[in-house]
């Protein structure tokens, strides 16, 4: 469990060192549509990509596209951290990147639709502001894909 009190001192300190002040300005946008009308993209920081895509470098602010129409079981992970377990992801891609669950929600009409393309960053080794250029680029691509909302997953 990631309750800091349960972790060894060095892991607690390592994770607490990642506390950062809010980037600001506040980015609150209220939902203007019901969930059943939202077009949703998944964005993960798990360092995922398809086998033929370039692997992430040790510290890397770029992102990889993940087509909604390709088989997510073909995704691999080149995250540089050694501080988390990957065996669960080996068993089930949805444990980290819940694409099948979102496809089920789409077919049930719980959400409106899924983006054509989802995205993966690799969250390690850099400060939040290092991702600003990539994040702005990604925002433009999400707009072009008519995405209303993003579902973010860490690893």
């Amino acid at each position, binding site marked *: 469990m990631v309750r800091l009190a349960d972790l060894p001192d060095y892991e607690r300190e390592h994770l607490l060192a990642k506390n950062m002040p809010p980037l600001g300005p506040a980015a609150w946008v209220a939902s203007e549509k019901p969930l059943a009308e939202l077009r949703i993209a998944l964005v993960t920081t798990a360092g995922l990509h398809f086998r033929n895509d370039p692997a992430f470098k040790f510290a890397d602010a770029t992102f990889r596209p993940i087509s909604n129409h390709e088989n997510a079981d073909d995704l691999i992970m080149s995250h540089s951290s050694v501080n988390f377990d990957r*065996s669960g992801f080996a068993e089930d891609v949805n444990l980290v990147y819940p694409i099948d669950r979102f496809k089920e929600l789409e077919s049930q009409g719980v959400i409106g639709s899924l983006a054509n393309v989802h995205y993966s960053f690799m969250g390690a080794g850099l400060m939040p502001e290092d991702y600003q250029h990539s994040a702005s680029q990604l925002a433009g691509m999400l707009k072009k894909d008519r995405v209303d909302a993003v579902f973010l997953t*860490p690893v």
Partner: protein
Amino acid sequence: MTTGISLVRENAASMAPPRSLWVPFPLGRPLGVANDPDFQHRVIAAALELFNSNHGPVLEDFPDDAPIQQTESALACPVTFIKSATTATSWQDRLGRELNTLKPWHDLGKRRRNGRTLTGVSNSSIDEIIQRLAEYLDTATLPSAELAWFKHATEDAKTYYLEALTAQPDEQDPDNLHKIFWTQTLLADALIMLAEQLSSTIGLEQFARILVPRRALDMRANFSAAD
């Protein structure tokens, strides 16, 4: 607009993203449980529910821990690692033998996962990876000229071992799994030896830290103390 999952509550509280659901799951498992669609749907629903908040930032806690996994999984390890009994002298020989004991299990696990494997980030075969890692140890050299390949290759090798150890479809406790890997395998010995050599080389200290987790050193220390 965004909603999402946070694995470290303190991080989310400090950065204050618009909507965040903290989940009490281990790192690497943001949806909680592998192959449990119902549980995963509950987590997703809780995060999507945050779209109904009128004000933000909002940080909610998911109420349930992930179901506890079996603790006897360590007994289900399919391979008996015999690193102390081997008479082979070179790393090439010893690691090669260990790899051969794992291959049938990796093949079995891969078939169970319908051909899925997370290996291949380095674009090298497992045989080539093991051969080159052993070469560094046998020749007392360091991979200074190919650090990017080396990092990906070590992750591929670890992944190969973990996929072999989980060839059977039972629920694996990740702590047991990593304890087996870090305390019983020759590959772990090899990685730790290489990491130690890298950490004492000027300019490569940080790199050594992304080869072996600190927790692995604790596991080995506790294992030795109990031996």
